[in-house]
């Protein structure tokens, strides 16, 4: 018997009982759709987290002051010391490491920005020209902080997009002066709209040279140093170098914490991938349930079509062929069911994507393949018994409808 004929005969007998066929396909497609939607959500959550980290920059090593000791009380604490601060010179020294491409020291404070009668509280970020590259920011109008001496406290600033709109409306902002605290700054650039990244809205930032920020807030310490490694392979090297340099410069005390973005990222990645697989697996249980349903209905179909099976045997169909016909029916059922499920699942994911635009909802390819394979597998597996039962019918009894 030709494959095409098998498929045609099987689809004919499926069409012969449309309600039953539709219900089985529905069960199959709900199972597949559940896997697709749930893994899409899980994958969306994973991508969301990864994107958030990526928007922070790539190949980043972050140096922050203080050290979290989990092993009891350090000697410094007994003496009432606070961790030594990280200075601009510390930051500059990090560039000596061969693994480091560039650095961006960060000082954060809040201040009042005003222009004429308009004023508001803003987050002021003190940094250098390299911040633009390190943090993957992009400039909208004008230019970013000028490169040059890290200690030079130029009176220039770059505004976040929203701050610019609030203070200047549609007016030209570049070249104008604003007051920040007790100093006047000339606006040299406006950031492009970027939205949120890691909880910090770049649209509502004001960026000034790090030395100016130190003067403004009367500090000399750094909130953080962002270190960009030359490439992915030397991230660990950069981290090690940064630790060593800080260790030496701080008189042999490990009083800074150095973390790599990569380590944090891969941890999140692992957790969220595991989560996605777990929800996908739970959804796959519904596929097994659909498989049992298929078995049940197939058994009924065999019982209902005893005479037909007897006839096929009398016409020269061996048991194997009859078994294959039932397999083909199961395969068609679960195949079409999974296609419908994919359609359902993808439209579901798109709808969820519309409702939560920040979540990059897309079903991972492995889940889609696994869902379809499970659907086909359970469909055929659960039809083994009914098909064997059909193949083993005694033709004389079957023809008599017994």
């Amino acid at each position, binding site marked *: *018997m*030709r494959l095409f*004929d098998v498929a045609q*005969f099987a689809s*004919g*007998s499926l*069409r*012969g009982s449309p309600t039953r066929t539709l219900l089985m396909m529905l069960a199959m497609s709900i199972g597949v759709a559940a896997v697709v939607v749930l893994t899409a959500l899980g994958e969306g959550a994973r991508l969301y987290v990864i994107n958030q980290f990526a928007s922070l920059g790539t190949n980043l090593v972050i140096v922050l002051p203080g050290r979290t000791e989990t092993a009891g009380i350090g000697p410094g604490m007994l003496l009432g010391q606070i961790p030594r601060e990280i200075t601009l010179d510390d930051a500059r020294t990090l560039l000596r490491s061969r693994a480091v491409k560039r650095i961006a020291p960060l000082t954060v404070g809040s201040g009042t920005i005003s222009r004429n009668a308009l004023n508001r509280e803003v987050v002021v970020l003190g940094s250098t020209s390299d911040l633009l590259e390190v943090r993957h920011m992009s400039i909208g109008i004008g230019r970013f902080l000028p490169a040059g001496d890290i200690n030079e406290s130029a009176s220039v600033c770059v505004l976040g997009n929203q701050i610019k709109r609030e203070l200047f409306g549609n007016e030209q902002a570049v070249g104008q002066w604003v007051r920040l605290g007790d100093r006047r700054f000339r606006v040299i650039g406006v950031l492009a709209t970027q939205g949120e990244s890691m909880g910090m809205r770049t649209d509502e930032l004001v960026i000034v040279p790090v030395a100016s920020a130190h003067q403004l807030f009367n500090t000399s310490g750094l909130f953080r140093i962002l270190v960009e490694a030359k490439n992915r392979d030397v991230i660990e090297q950069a981290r090690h170098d940064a630790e060593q340099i800080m260790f030496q410069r701080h008189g042999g005390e490990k009083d800074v914490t150095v973390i790599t973005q990569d380590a944090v990222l891969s941890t999140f990645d692992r957790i969220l991938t595991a989560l996605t697989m777990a929800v996908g697996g739970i959804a796959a249980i519904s596929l097994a349930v659909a498989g049992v349903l298929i078995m049940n209905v197939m058994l009924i179909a065999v019982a209902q079509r005893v*005479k*037909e099976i*007897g*006839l*096929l*045997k*009398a*016409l*020269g*169909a*061996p*048991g*194997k*062929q009859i078994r294959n016909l039932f397999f083909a029916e199961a395969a068609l059922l679960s195949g079409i069911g999974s296609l419908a499920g994919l359609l359902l699942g993808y439209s579901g994911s798109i709808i969820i994507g519309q409702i939560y635009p920040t979540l990059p909802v897309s079903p991972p390819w492995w889940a889609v393949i696994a869902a379809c394979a499970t659907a086909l597998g359970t469909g055929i597996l659960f039809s083994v018994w009914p098909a064997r039962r059909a193949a083993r019918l005694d*033709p*004389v009894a079957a*023809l008599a409808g017994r």
Partner: protein
Amino acid sequence: MIELEKVSRIFVVGDQQVAALRNIDLNIAEGDYVSIMGPSGSGKSTLLNMIGLLDRPSSGTYRLDGGNVTDLDDLQQAKVRSEKIGFVFQAFHLVPRLTAAMNIELPLMLAGVAVEERKARVAELLRNYGLTDRADHRPDQLSGGQRQRVAIARATSMHPSVLLADEPTGNLDQATGKEVMNLLEKLLAQNVALIVVTHDPAIGGRAHRQLHMVDGQIVSESGKRS
């Protein structure tokens, strides 16, 4: 071509053994026209199923076209049925969801005959049995006589050498029954061995060889041997 030697068939019903066939010896040649008659339960259908390889003898041997077919496995049996044997049943046994043409095509499809050849053979059979304008009708849209004609066309589609008919006129009125018998008898000209099981003496009397069965044994044979 059909040689049965001491064939018995014993069914176990509960704890009793019932012999449906007892030591049957029977030879049927090509082109023979044989009727098997007898009361209900005399084993005539069992004998027919035995010849059609739907049933296995409990003892004895069965040779078909010189080859021993007593102990063939399922696959080999199916092949013999497909190539050499055609069945016509009392209840027609058409597949209700398939059209007349597709019902006739069924054995060809199961045997894996190429599509073009299939279509040609089905068209020829429809023509021969006057069913061309009924080709796309489903069995429930056909009269009893038409259904049995579809069944005969299906039985002959693989050019069998043996045609087995189990009460072929049982569900038909007399006129249609005669028509169907005429169609079956036409096959004798093609050297097909025709074996008809019936309890209607009028039908059975048409055969050249008439076997009478009682309690699983052939008690007498009458008629003109051709």
